[in-house]
């Protein structure tokens, strides 16, 4: 790893369950969700079950906290609010040239196309530039657009920039907002569950979509105390199988886990926070990958039962919640899970469990056959 350590120095989650990481963690710990059925939302002819932000509340928050808020789209407001919260938390000077902004999103401002097909605000790079410039940062921001694995890939992109020595700080923002575009697409894929999703359960019928923004700020440098989170390992692999269907052998996800196990001892892993979208194929694929990696005994959880699938935000907010869980000595419950519905039985529970271990693995899989994983460890151990 080139001798450089990477430490997480701040984070934030804005979701329907709360506007900072602690509020979100408490809500998830107590089993809350804002997933519910929405009829006539976004002009969709078919209802859907999802977790939506309170738009009025976010907009008034943005008006109060963002200078010239009217210049930014809803997506950009969310990114700025989330990043601002985390930046303030760690007293970072975002305008410094040693800070890079990295943004994870699948569709950004795609809802702008509804008004005009020629609307160029949906170009992700322009949106990212506006966000970085808001903070007075003049470095070219990087947008990671790797479908549903973007949130972990953005962290990996940040870690590589920090390891290379080019930057000292990386502000990694993950965000997606729902729209007629995104929801209709998942409906056309027959991928959505009409009720709250049930990850890994035998009765699971599909995923829910959700909205959120999350920010993780990483720093090149040693942790300042035992409580700090350090990057340990990461990996990205393709299934080379199908552009929308997960591999039947869990190939890419298995290779990700196998790579990470070269750097982390299975015995120190508190849990694998898996993708767990609650589609038949994703969860089955992950059970195969985890089994092939020899991790059947390790605790597994999935958080889509609280938030739905938050797309570009998922990898960020699920990483933050995994850190918070270990900070509090627990493995979060998999909401919606009742009984095993995958070929291999995973060590999964719908109850909060205790843990004293200090490392976790976060994995994601998505369209394009993509799979990614990242592992963090708490404490000063090198």
């Amino acid at each position, binding site marked *: 790893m080139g001798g450089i350590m990477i430490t997480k120095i701040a984070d934030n989650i804005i979701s329907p369950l709360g506007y900072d990481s602690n509020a979100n963690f408490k809500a998830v710990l107590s089993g809350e969700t804002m997933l519910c059925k929405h009829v006539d939302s976004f002009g969709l002819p078919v209802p859907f079950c999802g977790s939506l932000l309170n738009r009025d509340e976010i907009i008034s928050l943005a008006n109060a906290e963002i200078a010239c808020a009217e210049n930014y789209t809803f997506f950009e407001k969310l990114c700025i609010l989330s990043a601002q919260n985390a930046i303030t938390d760690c007293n970072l000077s975002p305008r410094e040239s040693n800070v890079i902004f990295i943004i994870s999103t699948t569709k950004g401002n795609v809802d702008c196309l509804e008004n005009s097909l020629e609307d160029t605000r949906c170009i992700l790079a322009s949106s990212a530039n506006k966000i970085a410039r808001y903070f007075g940062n003049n470095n070219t921001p990087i947008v990671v657009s790797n479908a549903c694995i973007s949130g972990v890939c953005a962290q990996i*992109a940040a870690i590589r920039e920090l390891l290379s020595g080019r930057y000292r700080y990386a502000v990694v923002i993950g965000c997606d907002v729902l729209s007629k575009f995104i929801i209709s697409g998942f409906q056309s894929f027959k991928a959505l569950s009409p009720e709250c999703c049930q990850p890994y359960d035998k009765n699971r019928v599909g995923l829910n979509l959700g909205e959120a923004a999350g920010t993780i700020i990483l720093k090149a440098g040693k942790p300042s105390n035992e409580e700090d989170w350090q990057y340990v390992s990461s990996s990205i692999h393709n299934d080379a199988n199908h552009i929308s269907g997960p591999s039947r052998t869990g190939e890419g996800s298995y290779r990700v886990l196998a790579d990470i196990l070269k750097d982390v001892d299975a015995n120190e892993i508190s849990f694998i926070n898996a993708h767990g979208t609650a589609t038949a194929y994703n969860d089955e694929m992950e059970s195969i990958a985890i089994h092939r990696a020899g991790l059947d005994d390790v605790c597994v959880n999935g958080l889509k039962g609280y938030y739905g699938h938050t797309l570009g935000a998922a990898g960020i907010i699920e990483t933050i919640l995994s850190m918070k869980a270990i900070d509090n000595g627990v493995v979060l419950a998999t909401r919606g899970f009742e009984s095993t519905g995958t070929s291999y039985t995973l060590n999964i529970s719908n109850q909060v469990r205790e843990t004293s271990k200090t490392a976790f693995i976060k994995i994601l899989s998505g369209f394009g056959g993509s799979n990614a994983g990242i592992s963090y460890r708490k404490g000063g151990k090198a």
Partner: protein
Amino acid sequence: MKTIAEISITPNRTILNGDTISTANIAGLYREFVGDYPKFFKMDSLCKLGFIGSELLLKGINAEEKENAAIILFNRNGSLITDRNYQKTITDDNYFPSPALFVYTLANIVTGEIAIRNKIYGESSFYVLNNQDMDLMNDIINNTYLTSSPTFILTGWVDFDDEHNYEAKLKLVTK
């Protein structure tokens, strides 16, 4: 970083390792150089462009080397063309959302198409940048080796505006 092979594809010229090999458009290139992969016709324009570039670059590379290669691509417009086409399928008066279009509203699908064709199981990544910033792209490519060890990287710019404005500038590189 060592370049093993490079290709440039624009609407009127395809240059492979310095030689102009064709003046055909994307479909013409497919018929001229590939021809045996009907899935090509199901791809969106961005994927077709990236796919053709990869076919020409990867000729002669064996399966063993390809297995652990990485695919890291960049552009500015993401999947904008297909985003617009999908948007047309969800208007209020003609609402028939197309799954075959929706799947291509993710720019990284082009990396998946190349991985599938070539059985490449290594990293596949797609980045959206404001412009064709060679320094930043080279930086990202070099940094890949900090956390992984691909046999080679298929990388570069692949952007599709419309039939008259597209560009693929791809290369195979090793450390």
